[in-house]
């Protein structure tokens, strides 16, 4: 597999970022739902949120790099077998995934920094607060974070179902291409 994309193939960089993001997004969603239900004396009560926040910030960084990289590099052309409506839907879903990804992470950051405190990535790298001192920001951001995350996951499931449809029903290489093949 080449490092960079070609006209017909995804390169190693795009493939890695895609699958790493997918695993992390589903992992953070599960971790997030689990950690808020822990009781006060659970051994993970403190560490689970720290892990969730640290990984979230790193994914945000990766996503920023990904968006810049996406704009500055060529992408494989759509399969000749695809219909024009499918391409349009795919484009809308792809852009929406990016929008929900970024807004979900940003709303999460707002919960933790609403009092002016930094989010500290793995107890080492502080990401300072930018928006704080706004009344009940943590509550508004909290509701937004939950619903944006649910929307992101729903859209990602739709995206995965479309990939499965292409592979098993249309017998086209859409899913294979995402593995760099």
């Amino acid at each position, binding site marked *: 597999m080449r490092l960079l994309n070609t006209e017909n193939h995804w390169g190693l960089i795009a493939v890695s970022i895609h699958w790493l993001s997918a695993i992390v997004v589903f992992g953070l969603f599960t971790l997030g739902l689990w950690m808020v239900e822990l*009781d*006060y*004396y659970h051994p993970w009560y403190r560490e689970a949120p720290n892990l969730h926040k640290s990984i979230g910030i790193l994914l945000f960084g990766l996503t920023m790099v990904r968006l810049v990289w996406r704009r500055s590099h060529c992408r494989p052309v759509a399969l000749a077998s695809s219909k024009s409506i499918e391409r349009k839907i795919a484009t809308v879903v792809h852009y929406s995934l990016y929008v929900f990804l970024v807004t979900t992470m940003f709303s999460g950051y707002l919960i*933790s920094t609403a*009092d002016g*405190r930094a989010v500290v990535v793995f107890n080492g790298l502080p990401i300072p607060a930018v928006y704080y001192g706004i009344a*009940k920001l*943590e*509550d508004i951001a909290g509701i937004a974070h939950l619903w944006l995350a649910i929307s992101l996951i729903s859209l990602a499931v739709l995206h995965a179902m479309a990939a499965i449809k292409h592979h098993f029903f249309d017998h086209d290489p859409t899913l294979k291409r995402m593995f760099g093949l």
Partner: protein
Amino acid sequence: MKKYRMLIVILALTAFAVPIQSADYDIDAGGAHSNVQFKIKHLGYAWLTGRFNTLKGDFSYDEKNPKTSKVEVNIDTSSIDTNHSELNKHLRSEDFLNVSKYPDAKFISTSFRKKEKNKAVLNGKLTLHGITKNISIALDQVGHGPDPWGGYRRGFTGSTLLTLKDFGISTDLGPASRQVEMVLNIEGIRRK
């Protein structure tokens, strides 16, 4: 002489104004001179403090007949402030105050018993988390008198111990953290 006429009139009026004994006071919350603070042990090793920033209410106080004194306070539960956003959010949630369901806590006094010096005991009904219980507040009158802007003020501080479970808040914070100490700081401005 004409110069002093106005002054004499004012003094004469003041002479009538001073003997007012029973009076109604509005709690000065807008000026942030009143608040409800709380204190709970963290794991039994340290004190965690916080406060409710928004409250409103009034009281009446009769120096001649203090036992007729009455107070009513309404606290906006969502105004809880621990200086930690994640904790505020958690305390407002269903695990604790459930502020979307119970946006107010209310205290209505039922009796006032003056004790030695500036001390008193205030009994009343506290509604918190949808549950009403009789509580007793140990009260201290901090002071009273004219303020520099033409008003008259009277302030109290009081404290009471609440058991979280009594008010249906059952999230377990550990054996040392089942009770919370409430401190009320109230400043009233006399109604004109």
